[in-house]
């Protein structure tokens, strides 16, 4: 086969996924798995250095400041402000590709008052819809964790006035954001 033929045969398979159910990325490092496990059923648990009393995220092997490994999971309030926000019209992952076909996917980076900078799915429904574009630098938000339908803990940023103290309240938001069930495809396999 010439190079051109190999290319053509590869391109033949360059088609949208036929899976009936597409889910968010499952893959995590062992530290990411530990984060997922620590956050199941809680509002937000972040890695904290016992010596420096400092939160850090993403999860790491050692404290970023003192380099000790004296790290524990500790409850964080998750309050902070938006650093920057964007909407994705394009994704490399089938789950998000299907969601984006319905509407662009909003995410943000948030600076937590407790220190870390986090990526989060942005709950735009809970901001005044007319002002979605004003959800920008310095908008006050609250970040909580929840599992998605891949059973991995993910972070959600919502308006700081929204009630998120109970599991039910948090689940309602995640369901509304269509993270709690797969992206279906009619007639998929």
């Amino acid at each position, binding site marked *: 086969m010439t*190079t051109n033929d*190999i*290319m053509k045969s*590869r*391109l033949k*398979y*360059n088609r949208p996924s036929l899976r009936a159910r597409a889910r*968010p*990325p499952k*893959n*995590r*490092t062992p*530290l*990411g798995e530990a*984060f997922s496990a620590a956050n199941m059923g809680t509002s937000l648990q972040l890695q904290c250095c016992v010596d420096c009393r400092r939160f850090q*995220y*993403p*999860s790491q092997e050692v404290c970023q400041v003192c380099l000790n490994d004296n790290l524990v999971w500790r409850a964080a309030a998750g309050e902070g402000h938006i*650093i*920057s*926000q*964007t*909407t*994705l*019209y*394009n*994704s*490399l*992952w089938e*789950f*998000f590709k299907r969601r984006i076909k319905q509407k*662009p*996917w909003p*995410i*943000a*980076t948030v*600076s937590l008052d407790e220190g870390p*900078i*986090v*990526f*989060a*799915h942005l709950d735009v429904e809970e901001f005044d819809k007319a002002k979605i574009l004003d959800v*920008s*630098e310095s908008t006050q938000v609250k970040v909580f964790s929840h599992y*998605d339908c891949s059973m*991995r803990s*993910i*972070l959600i940023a919502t308006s700081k006035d929204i009630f998120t103290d109970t599991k039910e309240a948090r689940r309602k938001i995640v369901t509304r954001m269509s993270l709690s069930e797969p992206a279906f495809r009619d007639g998929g396999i």
Partner: protein
Amino acid sequence: MKSYDGVALLSPVSFGYSRQSSHSAAWFIGRTFQSVIHGAGLKKEDIDGFAVTSFSLGSDSSITLTQQFQITPRWIEQFPYGGASGIIALRRAARAIQCGDADIIACIGGDAAAHRSFEHQASIFSGFTIDASFPYGAGGPNTAFSLITQNYMEKYGTSREDFARISLDQRYNANHYPAALLGHKTLSLDEYMNARQIAGPLHLFDCVMPCAGGEGFLMMSEDRARHLKQPYCVIRSAQELHNAHPSDEIQFRGGWTEFVNELYAAAQTGPDEIDLVQTYDDYPVISMLQLEDLGFCKKGEAGKFVQETDMRFDGSGALNKKLPHNTNGGQLSVGQAGAAGGYLGLNETLRQLTDTAVNNSVPKAKIGLISGFGMINYDRGLCSAAAILARPNI
């Protein structure tokens, strides 16, 4: 810092750019390596130093490639620093030559682009990426750059029309550089503005196109280069800094701010005397950060600067102020051949300063600045590097 006197760069090769390829990285590196050696009239056996940069070598590395290519170097390196790899390779190899650890070093960047390989690379780029950014929409580098671009626009009032200046002039340059993957197409302001939206303020012509390809060059002593009767250029100065400004909430500057004065002082020059600039342009906003941090304009004023400056290689644009920038079209128009993208600006400068640029040569260019930016991890790029190259004896 000790100078880089006595070291020569030569034999720039850009090889095999293609949108997708069934060839592996080792093929691109091997074929580029061959062209680099032959270009200087050398034999494989003359090479005693070998440096490689690649994202897609898989379980292979610079050392296993020595067996594949049957070379026996006494100096070996691998530089996995993405867009800063070219300048980092230049700095390390220059020191090895000055110290006599190697006489002739080949620096090669090469990457494959098999079907769907980019998705895979983006999803496993680093631990932070796997755990804490890819699961949020899986946008790859577009995500971090749309956040950086959005923030920059809000902070400094920069518009999409400003970013367009960079993409449009680069496309003109690419139209004169045959290897550019998008060089056969022109780009108008309307086409730029109405392009498909990708992420927040980023549209299609703001994003580099991943591709396959190889880039390579040779380094040796000036004496050796003269003896070979090869055109070469010299290093006036070079600097790097990594994970700079870690407490900035979001990236609006890079490590260049910390070494820019020293960079120009060591080169005995300044931004006004630079004949051509190659910035690392995976997205226009990043070129703007470099133009600011490297002293071509003040912080936040790059939008205004590009609106006033003709950045075409031949100065044929309407604007009075001239600064040839990304003179072969940059990655935005040539394509981003993985980590080889980090060698693109360096090789383009080498061609310009050795009179080997064919249709896009910058008239009377004597001194060029290259900037590298690499490894977008989580929310920001970690490597900053820059070098000033010049023709010898000026």
